[in-house]
């Protein structure tokens, strides 16, 4: 059967010309899907003075890159980007279009889906091709992560999804890969810029709400001195997370009450909870046992925290934590997106 929609388009998110890791992760996944479908992976690289980055997208697994380069695309704004992506889709007629589930992707993709119009599945953590039908199976969490749902697209092509960052694996960079670069003119005019970006402020730190944090490094009585909190801070920074504490530390004035996890503090459910020197009194466990992955480091091998930990380490946290921070630093440096 002749299907005029083919290939996978991946929106290549970039900020200030820096390609975002999530885009490369999706390229990696799209590569796998493309093998099954026997089709191409095409990156949609949209921005200003961006063409030079197209080779990077190819090096990470794309077969082709569609470039829309325009001054109006310098900073992310919904309408010019929507118009550019829609133009790419109209031109290339892909079977599948994927976006990162980021603050940009989750703004852009629904707008594109509305314009086409076609279906869109948000925040996917798993993408597969269904045997026989070749349909894209999009699996995503719902109900606050309590339920997983597999969604299929029943509307017009392309099948579209946003994909969570940090779930798919990027391929290793291969500079020997070659691919075609297609330039597309989206016909943007000043009238498309329907918002005025007055200011862009980078690296703004937001106030800490541990109940919203995705990664928590948590300290308990076992950290000893107050000064040792700084090593937890360093680990948290390296992991991109926040520091929280047990009741013992909050009561001792080591940290403010707002950072306390437990029955009399906050209930948290991060993707990763690193319990350092926390014995795991029932009152503490009540506040954190719903965390997705729990690592516990404690000297006492009978500590109840090990009952709920996915990974328990019996040992001296003041030695292990700094070493771990270093190891992560090293790993990140080696695997940085060039």
């Amino acid at each position, binding site marked *: 059967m002749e299907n005029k929609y083919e290939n996978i388009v991946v929106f290549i998110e970039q900020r200030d010309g820096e390609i975002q890791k999530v885009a490369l992760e999706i390229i990696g996944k799209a590569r796998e899907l493309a093998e099954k479908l026997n089709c191409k992976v095409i990156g949609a690289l949209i921005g200003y003075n961006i063409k030079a980055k197209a080779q990077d997208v190819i090096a990470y697994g794309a077969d082709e890159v569609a470039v829309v380069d325009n001054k109006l695309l310098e900073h992310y704004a919904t309408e010019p980007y929507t118009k550019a992506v829609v133009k790419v889709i109209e031109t290339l007629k892909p079977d599948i279009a994927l976006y990162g589930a980021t603050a940009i992707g989750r703004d852009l993709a629904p707008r594109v889906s509305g314009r086409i119009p076609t279906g869109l599945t948000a925040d996917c953590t798993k993408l597969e091709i269904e045997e026989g039908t070749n349909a894209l199976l999009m699996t995503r969490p719902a109900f606050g992560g309590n339920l997983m749902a597999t969604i299929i697209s029943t509307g017009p092509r392309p099948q579209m999804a946003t994909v969570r960052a940090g779930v798919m694996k990027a391929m290793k960079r291969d500079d020997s890969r070659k691919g075609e670069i297609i330039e597309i003119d989206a016909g943007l005019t000043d009238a498309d810029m329907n918002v005025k970006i007055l200011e862009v402020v980078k690296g703004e730190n937001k106030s800490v709400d541990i109940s919203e944090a995705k990664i928590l490094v948590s300290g308990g009585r076992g950290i000893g001195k107050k000064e040792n909190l700084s090593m937890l801070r360093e680990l948290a920074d390296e992991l991109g997370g926040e520091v929280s504490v047990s009741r013992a530390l909050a009561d001792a004035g080591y940290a403010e009450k707002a950072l306390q996890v437990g*029955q009399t503090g906050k209930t948290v459910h991060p993707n990763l909870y690193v319990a350092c020197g926390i014995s795991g009194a*029932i*009152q503490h466990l*009540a506040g954190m046992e719903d965390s997705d992955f729990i690592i516990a480091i404690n000297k006492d091998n009978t500590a109840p925290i090990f009952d709920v930990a996915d990974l328990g380490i019996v040992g001296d946290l003041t030695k292990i934590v700094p070493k771990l921070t270093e190891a992560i630093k090293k790993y990140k440096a080696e695997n940085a997106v060039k």
Partner: protein
Amino acid sequence: MDFTLSKEHLLFREMIRKFAETEVKPLAEEVDEQERFPIETVKKMARYGLMGIKFPKEYGGQGGDALAYIMAVEELSKVCGTTGVILSAHTSLCCSPIYNFGTEEQKRKYLPKLLSGEHIGAFGLTEPGAGTDASGQQTKAVLDGDHYVLNGSKIFITNAGHADIFVIFAMTDKSLGTKGISAFIVERNFPGFSIGKHEKKMGIKGSSTCELIMENCIVPKENLLGKEGKGFSIAMATLDGGRVGIAAQALGLGEGAIEEAVKYVKERKQFGKRISQFQNTQFKLADMHTKMEAARLLVYNAALKMDSGERFSEEAAMAKLFAAEAAMEVTTQAVQLFGGYGYTREYPVERMMRDAKITEIYEGTSEVQRMVISSAMGVK
């Protein structure tokens, strides 16, 4: 009799629960430890209309009803007995008598600020020599031209340290006994009026309980509440409403203790099991819950009767008697379920137990309630 809550009461309960959980509960421990009046909470309550729930909008009230007010005291007391009694004393003992017995001018003058919560209200009846026997009033009021001169003192006055408006009782004619008692609306800054000693208490420690001192206190004649000599009946009618408020406080304390206990027994493990798995725990909690549910029906019934405009002295007395004794028992059992932890201040049940005790005492002891009930039965 219909015990299903209306949609607006259900929505109100949702609001007050959230308010109590978010704004009141986090302060409860500190307010108790530091014996501190939670003035910031009162201001927040004012913002959302909680200081004037059951009064009509024309006087600055919220257009709600007595049941909603009672539910507010209940839900606040679930997390903080202190906050519950602040609202109860303000509403039942000061706003209500002014609304029920005040002249149009008095209502227009005093209610808007009281009901908006800008002013806090209090009630001064009890004296060192006039507790359960309120007829033993020593405070005197003498008419002198365009004003009364009050002399005497009151004790155990709830909200006193932070109140702006007081409903005060004094003898205008000692020879007439209870028929010689009159009621007055006294502003905090009237000449000769002052706040005396602050009591240190077993429970409801954040509530401000003080002595009031009147030394040649000048009260304008137009601040006489009701007619001269009607003070005693105003006091008794006011206390009927106050008792339903205290019953609601007791109800909240008992229910709050049960909530804490249920949470705890599901987590606490002994002998390798959660203690909720022991039949002793299960049966004890079943009894506690049943008792408080019975109390709730009595309290809500009294509130509905209050809304209906009929006399409700007997219902109020029964509600308070039963709810207070149930609360005392249930909070004590809750401490028992917590064991050693229950006796520590790490958990709120010991505070609830201390708070519950007063509900058997103030606004008429349990013994007084029994007198009211038996007398209504014609058993004299």
